[in-house]
């Protein structure tokens, strides 16, 4: 479903991604690991069309469509979802209004009628239980005053509402305690279907105990330098990244 070819990207004129190649098929879970500053978050930002990053070379196709030609909102409509590492607070915009606008724009894109108020609230209630999100949070402003764990659960809640085909979890485990980690991970697993794929960006094996990857990549200095099965994550957990750097002759 997703094909990234020789992708190069800059921020403020500095090259961060230096030729990424990655293919993801429906149903697959890919983990992307790598030391700090290797370009993991940049890759996720480029996938969702963050205007701060400039793609200088390469291509991304998603179900045959040229993703780089699509606006962030249309990428969402096409089924790409990013769970932010740092979810943004939007004072004054209630979760209900925010989600209703999002869901209805998705429906409009698919040529469906907007949901009625009662249908929408029913959907909210249903999806909320997946990540055990408190009803009170639904009536508050988006992420405002949410704890770290609540923010991450809220990301997965939004994912549940929008039913993406490809979800990118950018360090969703950061700042979570053990219980919250379990709730979030179980939420992601519940939403998983044979047609949907997931990219899990993480530093730790812990999350991968719950969300089991099929393929693990190591991103280093803007390139994918190693790709293997789930055993690679365990090896990294034990040995760190130095051996990979040595393999690369550094």
């Amino acid at each position, binding site marked *: 479903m997703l094909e990234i070819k020789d992708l190069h990207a800059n921020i403020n004129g500095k090259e961060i991604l230096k030729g990424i190649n990655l293919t993801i098929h429906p149903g697959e879970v890919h983990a992307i690991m790598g030391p700090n500053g290797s370009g993991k978050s940049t890759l996720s930002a480029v996938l969702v069309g963050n205007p701060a990053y400039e793609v200088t070379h390469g291509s991304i196709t998603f179900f045959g469509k040229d993703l780089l030609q699509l606006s962030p*909102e249309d990428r969402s409509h096409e089924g790409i979802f990013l769970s932010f590492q740092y979810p*943004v*607070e*939007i004072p004054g915009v209630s979760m209900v209004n925010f989600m209703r606008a999002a869901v209805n724009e998705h429906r409009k894109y698919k040529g469906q009628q907007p949901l009625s108020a009662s249908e929408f609230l029913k959907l909210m209630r249903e999806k909320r239980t997946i990540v055990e999100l408190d009803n009170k949070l639904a009536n508050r402003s988006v992420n405002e005053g949410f704890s770290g764990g609540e923010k991450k659960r809220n990301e997965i809640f939004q994912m549940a509402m929008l039913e993406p085909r490809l979800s990118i979890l950018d360090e969703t485990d950061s700042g979570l305690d053990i219980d919250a980690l379990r709730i979030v991970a179980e939420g992601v697993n519940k939403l998983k279907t044979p047609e949907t794929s997931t990219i899990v960006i993480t530093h730790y094996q812990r999350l991968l105990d719950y969300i089991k990857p099929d393929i693990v990549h190591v991103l280093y200095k803007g390139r994918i330098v190693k790709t293997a099965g789930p055993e690679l994550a365990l090896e990294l957990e034990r040995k760190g990244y130095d051996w990979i750097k040595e393999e690369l002759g550094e």
Partner: protein
Amino acid sequence: MKAEKQYIDIFTLYEETICRHSAEVLNTPRAKAFADFERIGFPTRKDEKFKYTDIARLFEPNYGLNLNRLDIPVNPYEVFKCDVPNMSTAQHFIVNDAFYNKASSAPSNNLPEGVIVGSLKESAKEKPQLIKQFYSQLASTADNAITAINTMFAQDGLFIYVPDNTFIEKPIQIINILRSDVDLMANRRILIVMGENAKAQLLLCDHAMDNVNFLATQVSEIYVGRGATLHLYELEETHTSSVRLANCYVRQEENSHVLLNGITLHNGTTRNTTQVTLGGAHAELGFYGMAIADKNQHVDNNTFIDHAAPECTSNELFKYVLDEHATGAFAGLVLVRPGAQHTNSQQTNRNLCATREAHMYTQPQLEIYADDVKCSHGATVGQLDENALFYMRTRGISKKEARLLMMFAFVNEVIDHIRMDALKDRLHLLVEKRFRGELNKCQGCAICK
């Protein structure tokens, strides 16, 4: 003295006509107002208080004045049908500057005994002693040309009187309509007297019906007696060739509660000057305002809260959203006089400029002459948060819709201070329409039609 000359000439020439069509109490202060005006003239932009609005230029055009009180052919009760859902108000009209009292179709108001809601001119004829105590007392002509002009020319307007211990349950709605076939200047006068422990809610709506140039001056004098409560909402929804110059003077006595909410939804050029004196201990003021402006619209709010007594509270919040080439100005002075101990005062002004061409000038001022007080103020001018916009877009919300949601959220804080639920709901809708560009001009009356 170019702009001043035509008003000096008109007054000199037509003073007798003005007086003949008004009432004695209103005529008495005219001579002094005229002398004051001749002395001070219009303020220039060098004048600190008028830095952002060129008053003299606004008075320069040649507007018509209806000094002979010719009948304006309109029956507002037929033209304006209020459809604010679930809002039951006692509705009255002021056409240009005259209280509309051909009330065959006016609703019967069932007001409590002693309450007066009516023409200032008629009231001044019927109850000169009552009006005399209050008229032109707070509104000093000595230092404000707009008040001086208004006092010179005002022939009628609105008088509201709520006697001691009287509670008006139903909100009173006053709809100002500017109606004319030629360019027109209207000088409207409002006098509100709330007796001790009296209670009332008042909604003033400003509309411009015809596509001519309007200049409206409005001077309001509001007395709020001991223990009285007044909620006053002012909603402007005029068009781009209207000028509104409104001076409002409020005096609050001990334990009184006042809520002022001023909303500029659509306008041309607006300058609101509001001066509130907290004159008795434990008086409370909530003062909220918002402005939405685009095109070349101009909104200037100048506020002065005078803490003249101890133990008083004032909360002030103004928010502006400026798009395209709009200009906004806010200057707010809070003065805590010697002896006004335990004053609790908070002032906030937050502004959004949606384009590089929109301009906002903000000038918060705090002067404290007492040593045991709690006062704060803050002002910000900024743009919409790009991170929040992007976050929303990644959820499939279009850029336009995301901007709208955020602008709406921004002004909501002001709307939330409205205590009339029906008005609050209606404003949510109107503000949304306004941001969507569906409220481009006053279409008769968005709130009432």
